[in-house]
C-alpha cells in the first residue's frame, strides 16, 4: 500500500517535470522578447552576457510618440471583429442545415465548403487583388473584413456543425411538438445549446484573422489600412536603424489579444452545456 502511494507520487512528479520543461521551452521566446521590450536599446546589443538587466520604458515612449499603433490596433479589431460577425451570421444557418436537414448532396456540399480551405491562398491572391481593385475596395478595412470572413467561413461552419451534431435530436423534436418553428428552434434551442462551439469557432477565426498576412499586405497598400500583423512586419524602427526593443514591444502588444482569445477559448472548450438535457 505504502509503496503504491509512493510510486504514484513519483509518477506525478515526473509528469510535472516533463510538462513543466515543455512549457518552459514553449514560453522561453515569449519571456525573452518580453524582457527585451523592457530594456534600454544599448543593453540589448552588447555582446557580453548580462545577468541583472536594467529596466526601462524607452521602447514604450518611442512607440507612443512615433508610431500610429492605435490606428493599427483599431484596424485589426474592426477588420477581425467584423469578419467574425459575418462568419457567424452565415455559418450558423449553414451549419444547422448541414447538421439537420436531409437533402440530396448534403455530404458533398459539406465537403465543398471545407475544400475551400485546402487551397493554397497564394493561388487566388492575384485574382483577389484585381477583384477588389475593380470594385474600388483596395486599401480599406472593409475589404479586409470580407477577405478574413471568406478565409474562415468554411472552418467556422464545420466547427459549429460538429457541435450541432452533438445536440440530441430529441431536443428539437420536443421543441417541435411544443409548437416551435424552425427559426425558433434554431434561436432558442440550438444556438444556446451549442454556444460553446460557436464561441470556440469565433475565437479560432479571430486568431486566424489577426495573424492573416498575405492578403492584408496585398489589399492594404498604404499604412491607412494596416493591421497589426502587417504593421509589425514593416516596423523596423525607421530612420534610426533596427530598434530591437521597440520591435519586441510591438510583437508583445500584437501577441496579447491572441493570448486573451486563447484563454477565452480554453474556458469554453469544455462541452458541458448539453449535459442534463438527456438521460445519459
Amino acid at each position, binding site marked *: 500500500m505504502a509503496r503504491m502511494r509512493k510510486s504514484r507520487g513519483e509518477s506525478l512528479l515526473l509528469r510535472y517535470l516533463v510538462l513543466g520543461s515543455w512549457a518552459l521551452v514553449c514560453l522561453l521566446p515569449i519571456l525573452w522578447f518580453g524582457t527585451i521590450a523592457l530594456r534600454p536599446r544599448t543593453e540589448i546589443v552588447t555582446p557580453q552576457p548580462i545577468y541583472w538587466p536594467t529596466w526601462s520604458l524607452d521602447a514604450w515612449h518611442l512607440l507612443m510618440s512615433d508610431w500610429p499603433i492605435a490606428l493599427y490596433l483599431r484596424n485589426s479589431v474592426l477588420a477581425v471583429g467584423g469578419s467574425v460577425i459575418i462568419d457567424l451570421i452565415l455559418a450558423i444557418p449553414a451549419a444547422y442545415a448541414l447538421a439537420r436537414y436531409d437533402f440530396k448532396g448534403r455530404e458533398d456540399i459539406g465537403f465543398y465548403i471545407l475544400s475551400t480551405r485546402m487551397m493554397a491562398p497564394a493561388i487566388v491572391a492575384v485574382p483577389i487583388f484585381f477583384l477588389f481593385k475593380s470594385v474600388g475596395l483596395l486599401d480599406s478595412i472593409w475589404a479586409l473584413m470580407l477577405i478574413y470572413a471568406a478565409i474562415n467561413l468554411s472552418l467556422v461552419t464545420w466547427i459549429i456543425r460538429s457541435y450541432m451534431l452533438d445536440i440530441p435530436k430529441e431536443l428539437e423534436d*420536443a421543441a417541435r*411538438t411544443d*409548437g416551435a418553428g424552425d427559426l425558433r428552434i434554431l434561436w*432558442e434551442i440550438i444556438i444556446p445549446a451549442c454556444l460553446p462551439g460557436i464561441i470556440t469557432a469565433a475565437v479560432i477565426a479571430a486568431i486566424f484573422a489577426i495573424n492573416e498576412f498575405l492578403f492584408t499586405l496585398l489589399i492594404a497598400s498604404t499604412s491607412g489600412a494596416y493591421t497589426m500583423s502587417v504593421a509589425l512586419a514593416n516596423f523596423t524602427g525607421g530612420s534610426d536603424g533596427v530598434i530591437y526593443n521597440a520591435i519586441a514591444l510591438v510583437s508583445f502588444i500584437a501577441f496579447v489579444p491572441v493570448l486573451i482569445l486563447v484563454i477565452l477559448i480554453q474556458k469554453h472548450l469544455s462541452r458541458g452545456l*448539453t449535459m*442534463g438535457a438527456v*438521460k445519459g
Partner: protein
Amino acid sequence: MASIRLENIVKRYGAFTGVQNMSLDIADEEFLVLLGPSGCGKTTTMRMIAGLEMPTEGNIIIGGEVVNDIDARDRDVAMVFQGYALYPNMTVYENIRFPLRMRRVPASDQDRMVRTAADMVELGAFLDRKPGALSGGQRQRAALARAVVRQPQVFLMDEPLSNLDAKLRQSMRVQIKHMQRQLRITTVYVTHDQIEAMTLADRIVIMNKGAIQQVGTPDQIYTDPANTFVAGFIGGPPMNLIEGTATGGRFTAPGVNAPCPANLSGRITLGIRPEDCTVGGGQVQGLVYGVEPTGDVTYLSVLAGTKQVEVKAARDFRSDIDVPITIGFDPARLYFFGADGQRIRGGA
C-alpha cells in the same frame, strides 16, 4: 380531445422493419397503454403519432383528419420523451413555460399554469434550476410537467415514470390517471411496468417485434391471452408455459400430468398462472428449487423434469430446497396453445 386511428402503419428503417402493419383504433378520451419488450417499436409508434417520424406506409388519423402530411407542431399533441429532452439552457420554469409561449397562451395565465404543473410533479422548489443540476427523477418529472402544462388534443407519454422511486411512482401514477380523467384527453402511454399498465389503462396493447400481439382491457389481457407471448409477458411472475404432449384427454410433460380437452393431440403448450397453482395435488411431481418470501405472498419454484414451475404459495409457506413436492392446477384455469403459439380456445 380526439380519437386516433392507425391504418396499416408500416415503419421501415432500410431493410429493418420497426413497426409492421399496425392497425389500431384509439377512442376519444381513452387511456391506452403500449406494453412490450425493449425494441418492439413503442417509441417509434409514438413518434409517428406525434409527427416526428413519417410512416413508410399507412395512414394516421387524428380527430377524423388524416395527419400524415401535417407537421408535428401543428398536430397539437404533447409528448413526454423517453430521454426527457429538457432544454439545457433554460431553467425548469422556462422549460415548462416553453410550450405555453409557443402556443401563444396569454402571458397572464402562463405563470399560474407553470406553477400548477410544477406542483403536480412536486418540483415547485426547483423551478430556478437548470436541468443539469437536477437528479434523474427530477428531470423526468420536469419533462412530465412540460407535457401536462397545457391541454393538447393528445398526450403521448413514453415511460414517464421509469426513473422514479416506488413511492413517487405510485403517487405520480394516481396523479396522471386523475388528470387524464379530469381533462378527458386521449392518452397513449408507454411503460415496462405491468402494475402501471394494469392500473392506468382502459385498454392495453401488447407489442412484440413491431407487431401488435393483442389489444384488450387489462382484464382481457390477463384472463384471456391470445398467444404464448402475451401469456408469458403479463403477470408477475408470468404464466407458466409447459411444453408437452396431448393424447386422449391427458397432457403430459416430464413431471407433469394434467387433464386437457379430449380433442387436443400432439405437441402443445399448457399454460397455468402461478396464482392458479396450489401446493399439494397431483399435476406436478417435482423438487423444491427455491422459496422467495415477499411478506405478502411466498413464491415457490418447483423443478419438474427440466422445467421450473412457479407457484404463488401461502405467505407462511417455507421449505428446504430439493424436497419432493407435488403441485395442483386449478383445472378451470388451464390454457392451451398450439405449436404456433396461438391460443387453442374451447377451454379445458
